[in-house]
Every structure is written in C-alpha cells, then in structure tokens.
C-alpha cells in the first residue's frame, strides 16, 4: 500500500476543517489565532503534496513565502491581542466590538 497524493490532500482537508471549526467555535482570540495557524499549515501540506506530485519545486518555494507571511502575521496579531487585553482586560472576542456598527 503506497501513500498517494490523495492521502495528503485528505489530511490537509481534514486539518483545514478542524481549523475552521476552531475559528467558529472558540471565543478566545488566542485560540482562534492558533486555529488560523492550523489552517495555514494544512494549506502548506497541500502545496508540498502537489509539489511532490508534479515534481516541481515552485510549490515548496510558495510554502517558504507562506511561512514568512505567517511569521509577520503572528507578530502583528499577537501585538493587537496584547493591546486589546490592555484596553479591555479580556481577549474574549464577544467583548471586542469596537469596530462594530
């Protein structure tokens, strides 16, 4: 039994669904952020799987850039979460409705 690209894509899809569920179910901004990281990683698995499947290096280079953007995103996002915690004393996203009409 050999591991085909479909296995990796199925795993990627399931991990993405878990991440979507986490974003929608949790109210803690930090956990929502971690679920977003999970979704980014599942997309990376799909990119590397296709890179292997097509025997083309470009997919892996794209994963490299996704990692760079994710690092920048995490730094800015966590700074925002800390600022919100300083203002509100909580990271519950139901209590953060500053930009809501």
């Amino acid at each position, binding site marked *: 039994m050999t591991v085909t690209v479909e296995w990796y894509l199925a795993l990627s899809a399931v*991990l993405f*669904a878990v991440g979507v569920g986490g974003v929608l179910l949790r109210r803690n901004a930090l956990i929502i952020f971690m679920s977003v990281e999970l979704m980014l990683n599942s997309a990376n698995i799909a990119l*590397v799987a296709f890179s292997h499947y097509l025997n083309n290096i470009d997919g*892996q280079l794209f994963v490299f850039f996704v990692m760079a953007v994710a690092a920048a995103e995490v730094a800015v996002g966590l*700074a*925002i979460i800390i600022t919100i915690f300083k203002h509100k004393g909580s990271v519950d996203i139901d209590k953060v409705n500053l930009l809501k009409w």
Partner: protein
Amino acid sequence: MEATLFIITALTALVSSLLVVTGKKPINSILFLIVTFFCVAVFYLMLGAQFIAAMQIIVYAGAIMVLFLFVVMLLNMREEQIWEKLTSSRKVIAFVVALGVLSVVVTAVTVTLSTPNPADSQYELGTVEAIAEGLFSCWLLPFEMASVLLLTAIIGVVMMVKRKEQEETVTEEPKS
C-alpha cells in the same frame, strides 16, 4: 512501511489538532499545536521537502510558538468558559460551516485527481540547493519583498506597543 508511518503521524496530527481546538487552557492548546507542527514536519520529510521540514520546526515550532507562549505568560488569562457561553444555534452553524468546507475541499480533490500522475516523483526535490536555485533566480523579487514585509511587521509591532507611551509624553510636554 510508509503507509503505517503516514497513518500513525496523521492520527497524531488529527488528535492533537482537535485538542488544540477543544483545549480549555491556552497553554495546553499551544503545546498540542507544537505536536501538530512536528507531525506536519514529518509529512514534509515523507514528501521529500527536507528544507521546508527544517523551516517548519525552526520557524513554526520554534519562533512562532515561543511568541504564543510569551503572550500567554504576559496576559495571565483565566480559564475561559467557552462551551457554556456558546448558544446551541452557534455551535450548529459552526459545525455545518466546517463540514461544508470539508465537503467542498474533498469534492474538489476527488474531481481534480482523476488524471494520472504526470511525472515520476523524486525524493531529491526539496534540497537546500534546489530551493536556493529557485529562490534566487525567478523568485528573487518575492524573496526581497518578504524581507520588506518582515521589516514592516517589526516596525508596526513596535509602533503599536509604543503608542501609549508616546501619548503620555505628548500630554506631559505642556506642563514642562
């Protein structure tokens, strides 16, 4: 051999990712997210992407998760009561949307992958040499732009954290 390794790693990744999403304390979620990232690194190795696997461990499991740990340490959050606060309609909507996304992706995969494998995959694809060749030839401009992006992120974070201090100095200035 490869299949058993895949199944074991996939199950570990799935269980730990579910624990990330359902964990009560943020610190537990962070530790299980590190486990998930290590499993993803194993998948990269199985797919012949050695450089990306090393980057996954260094950047994700190392740098990014240390940032998360520092935030949890700084915020000192109490245990949240998330499941009680959620209304049942919200839970239903969340599960329906997550299952919908899963079904869309699975259908897309099954429809797309009816074509046969176009090329024989080789395991020497993701070496540092191959990555560098691509990165410093046709992907040079995105590579440089990534450095600008990271610089912008650093400056943005410093400004965001410094703003309050600046306001205080502005209000203090008229007094002196």
